[in-house]
């Protein structure tokens, strides 16, 4: 289990290992639009925990695309090995996707334009609830926006 707050863990994964931060920055608006669409659909369902699960499940294949397309093979290998070392019993590729998802949402909260902020906050809330419910990564002890 990582000692550091989860966002730091996610930042390490994306910036130090996958080196996907430029890809994410470059495609910020497309990424936001896609995640916001999923958020909109989740909101249309209901406000319960099921909607959070649907939101995360719908976004993960998209985020997996960011992991694979936004990283080079050698960086991906290093990131996977690092994730395996940190969480030896987890699926390292899924861990990298989850961390990338956290990173994107956190970046959106911190640096997204003000018009996007309510949507990022809503997504962040869904992720928090989802992680708290699943107990994944020991809950999300991240810094706030």
């Amino acid at each position, binding site marked *: 289990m990582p000692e550091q707050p989860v966002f730091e863990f996610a930042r390490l994964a994306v910036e130090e290992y996958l080196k996907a931060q430029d890809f994410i920055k470059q495609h910020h608006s497309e990424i936001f639009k896609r995640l916001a669409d999923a958020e909109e659909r989740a909101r249309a369902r209901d406000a319960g925990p099921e909607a959070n699960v649907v939101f995360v499940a719908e976004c993960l*294949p*998209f985020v*997996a695309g960011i992991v694979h*397309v936004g990283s080079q093979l050698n960086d*991906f290998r290093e990131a996977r090995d690092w994730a395996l070392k940190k969480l030896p019993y987890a699926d*390292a*590729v*899924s861990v990298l*996707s989850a961390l990338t998802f956290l990173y994107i949402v956190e970046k959106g909260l911190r640096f997204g334009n003000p018009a996007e902020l309510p949507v990022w906050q809503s997504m962040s809330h869904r992720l928090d609830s989802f992680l708290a419910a699943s107990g994944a990564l020991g809950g999300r002890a991240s810094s706030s926006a």
Partner: protein
Amino acid sequence: MRFEIDVSNPSDYPRGGPVTVPWQPIEQATGIGASAFQLLDRNGCGVSAQIDRIDPTDPSLDTLVFSLPSKAPPEASATVFLEAGSGARPEASCCFPAPADSPARVELSSGALTVSLSLAPCQDATDHDWFAGSAQSVRLGAVEMLDVHCSNLGFIKHDPEKRCMQIDRLLLSRPAWEELPDQEVYLHRSPYQLVSFCSGPVREACTIMSSPFEYVYWDPFERQSRNLVCSFYRTLILHRGSDSVIEELWLKGAAAGGSGNPISLSFSARYFANMFLGHEPVVYRFETVPDWFAAGYPAGDVHPGYGFATDAHAGHFRHPHPGYPDAEKAERTFSWELRPCKRARCLHLFRLNGAVPVERRAGHLWYEEIYKPLRAKVR
């Protein structure tokens, strides 16, 4: 008059699905023509069927295809009935002749899987002319299987180099007394021609033919070099609802000048694919099983996979393809070679997030489609 067609199930479990049988012997035995026939089940209900004209110049390749209306019991037979039909039934066969001008590409669909096959070496305004005979797009539903992650992202252009099912090279062995090495024929830069396109209730199929090329060998009896003009044929088949493409390969040669009957020649074909399943896909291949293999991505949240099966045996599976010029994208390339044969039946499987892993499905399809297919004969 009504004729019985027995379909035997070689397996120890009930089996259904499409059945293929050469049409010409049936036509000769029954006197029923391809343009007016019908297949019925025991209750007299129509059975979905079609007759595909694989090569209009060779009626011996005409094929009757039908969907077994109910599963054949284990290690036993099911029966359908053939009789002359008075008119076209809604579910009866249809077969379209090849267009007069061969198009640059042909698209086949099973409903679930859609394959866009490039006949021309180049499909755009670039000078990238190495795509002949390749599927440049394979879509499972709305997802592009050759570039799954870009497809899932939706905002990145697909890799223009993506392709699969391409036979880029043939090796033609020479006679034993020949001192020259095997003849290499590269097919990826020469256009294919559409020979036939068939679409019916059971399947879609097309046959394509390579540009002609010469095969030269030494005739020890006449003590002179001889030339054959050859064409490589590929029939690609998608059964309705299927997630795989069945392919039949053969090589036809005829004496230069067109004298004499065409003959069937031995060849070994090399397949090439450039598809991105994700970084570091897993290859499933048993060293002692040359009949099928698969490459998939069991980790993470997206699980694309490709499987291949053949009755000709496949050699070493190379990943990445040696010498691929773009080192960064070499991880997307795969190649393998079939053992020498005169005819090969192959299967290409495409999976995305299925409940059954790609390697299990590939092995199962090898068994059902290649090794022990349902067999039919007129009684």
